[in-house]
């Protein structure tokens, strides 16, 4: 089907990159696949790092995505611990830090994102951590016994999951957040309030509307100083204050906003160069959006990889989705919205089992948050995918099936 003399180079062996490489083989691509990462670990899954792996419930082997043998079987030429020195987009070649030059026919950028760093005094003290990679997670776990008090900077998803994991491990947790409520910029004030109370009920000291200005300690972090003058004693700090897409490669030539801009097929502004996952900005329902979540990285990686093979082009339109596990809450969020008009609650907040819908002016569900309601997941995903109006008054009524809440025109 494809020319076996062809080379596809993928930069970034994270979630999107590895699934893209696999998808190429599933599509019976017979050419060479070179998959490059600066990380030295065989590809692994990231979400468990803040959850099961942090709790000691899963091991490195559990979270590995492939063994060396698997990759050989798939004939994926994986190069780890390698940097890209130069990419020549006209000659379609790349020079690697190990001296090799690769001539590629198609290039896929799956460089993901990096964690935003806090450039403040004391950042280089021992015990000040970030959590993105397996080695970050191992470093945090390595000192767990010496840690009784831990400060988490940022109450986003990673911060919230870590707060939950460390509470389960019996630690004293302080959660510091600059905004008035956690996650309110995504989930709204009502849910922000709900999740603030969740942390408090679990015994976390949650400090809102304050931020860290300095880490103190001799060689090891001993306390966090906040802007409002608080001192938080701790033996470890984890900073989770957002991510920045990795767009250093080809940054002069490619169109970049919050990520490499791609069209619905994953093509960048340069011929034969594609991007997918956290590092890309893509069109969803007419707006260019960036999604930094696992399910998107997999589906986008797979879809764009197939399109690279030049057959029938599929436009990518998967409803964005993420989940997050915190304490005994499982959150699932479908869709994407910034300016919703109204919200509707279905279920009971006190029972910790409910769905919360974000509707636009035309009563189309733009997004939905499910809390401990996996039973609704697939139905809600379909509902959002349809982009048709619902009857908001019906949504709260749990005797009415979700699909029966659609608005039906009567002639």
């Amino acid at each position: 089907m494809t020319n076996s003399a062809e080379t596809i180079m993928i930069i970034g062996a994270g979630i999107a990159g590895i699934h893209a490489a696999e998808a190429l083989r599933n599509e019976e691509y017979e050419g060479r696949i070179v998959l490059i990462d600066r990380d030295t670990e065989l590809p692994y899954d990231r979400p468990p790092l803040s959850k099961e792996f942090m709790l000691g419930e899963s091991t490195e082997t559990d979270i590995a995505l492939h063994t060396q043998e698997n990759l050989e079987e798939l004939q994926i030429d994986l190069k780890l611990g390698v940097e890209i020195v130069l990419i020549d987009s006209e000659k379609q070649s790349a020079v690697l830090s190990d001296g090799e030059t690769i001539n590629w026919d198609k290039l896929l950028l799956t460089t993901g994102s990096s964690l935003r760093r806090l450039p403040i005094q004391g950042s280089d003290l021992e015990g000040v951590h970030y959590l993105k990679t397996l080695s970050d997670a191992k470093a945090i776990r390595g000192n767990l016994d010496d840690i009784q008090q831990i400060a988490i900077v940022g109450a986003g998803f990673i911060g919230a999951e870590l707060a939950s994991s460390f509470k389960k491990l019996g630690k004293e947790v302080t959660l510091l957040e600059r905004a008035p409520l956690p996650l309110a910029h995504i989930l709204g004030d009502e849910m922000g309030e709900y999740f603030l109370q969740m942390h408090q009920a679990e015994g976390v000291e949650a400090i809102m509307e304050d931020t860290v200005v300095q880490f103190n300690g001799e060689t090891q972090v001993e306390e966090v100083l906040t802007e409002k003058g608080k001192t938080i004693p701790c033996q470890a700090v984890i900073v989770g204050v957002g991510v920045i897409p990795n767009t250093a490669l080809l940054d002069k030539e490619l169109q970049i906003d919050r990520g490499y801009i791609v069209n619905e097929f994953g093509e960048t502004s340069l011929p034969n160069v594609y991007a997918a996952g956290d590092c890309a900005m893509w069109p969803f329902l007419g707006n260019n959006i960036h999604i930094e979540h696992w399910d998107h990285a997999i589906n986008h990686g797979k879809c764009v990889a197939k399109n690279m093979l030049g057959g029938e082009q599929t436009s990518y339109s998967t409803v964005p989705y993420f989940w997050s596990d915190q304490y005994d809450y499982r959150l699932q969020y479908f869709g994407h919205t910034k300016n919703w008009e109204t919200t509707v609650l279905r279920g009971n907040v006190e029972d910790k089992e409910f769905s919360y819908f974000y509707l636009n002016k035309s009563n189309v569900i733009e997004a939905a948050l499910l809390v401990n309601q996996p039973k609704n997941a697939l139905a809600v995903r379909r509902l959002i995918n349809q982009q048709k109006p619902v009857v908001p008054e019906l949504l709260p009524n749990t005797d009415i099936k979700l699909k029966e809440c659609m608005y039906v025109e009567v002639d």
Partner: protein
Amino acid sequence: MTNQTENLPLEENKYTFAAASDSVKEGEMIDIFLGKETVVLARVDGSVYAVDGICSHAYSEMVDGELEDHCLYCPLHFACFDIRDGSVLEGPAVTPLSVYDVMEQDGSIWIKALDIYGE
């Protein structure tokens, strides 16, 4: 949880009572608990199938997913398994669900753990 089996002693032929036949309707599924195991029972085209009730990928209860013909979808990352033999039809799961041999007799469903997948 729809159905709770009592801890019946294993029958001689190693089949365990799982549920009453009429509790598993066509195209629907229920979960039951056998010791530490959660098992999903589903009826497709009249036949009852029994597979592991916990997804082989991360952690999710399969009974919260959806059954479409013989495809069983996980509600967490939407892996899809064939209810008849537990095989993976769509990722992210790579490991099949373990399956149980099913006997339906006189209004009762009995199941037996298979030692090897697909045996």
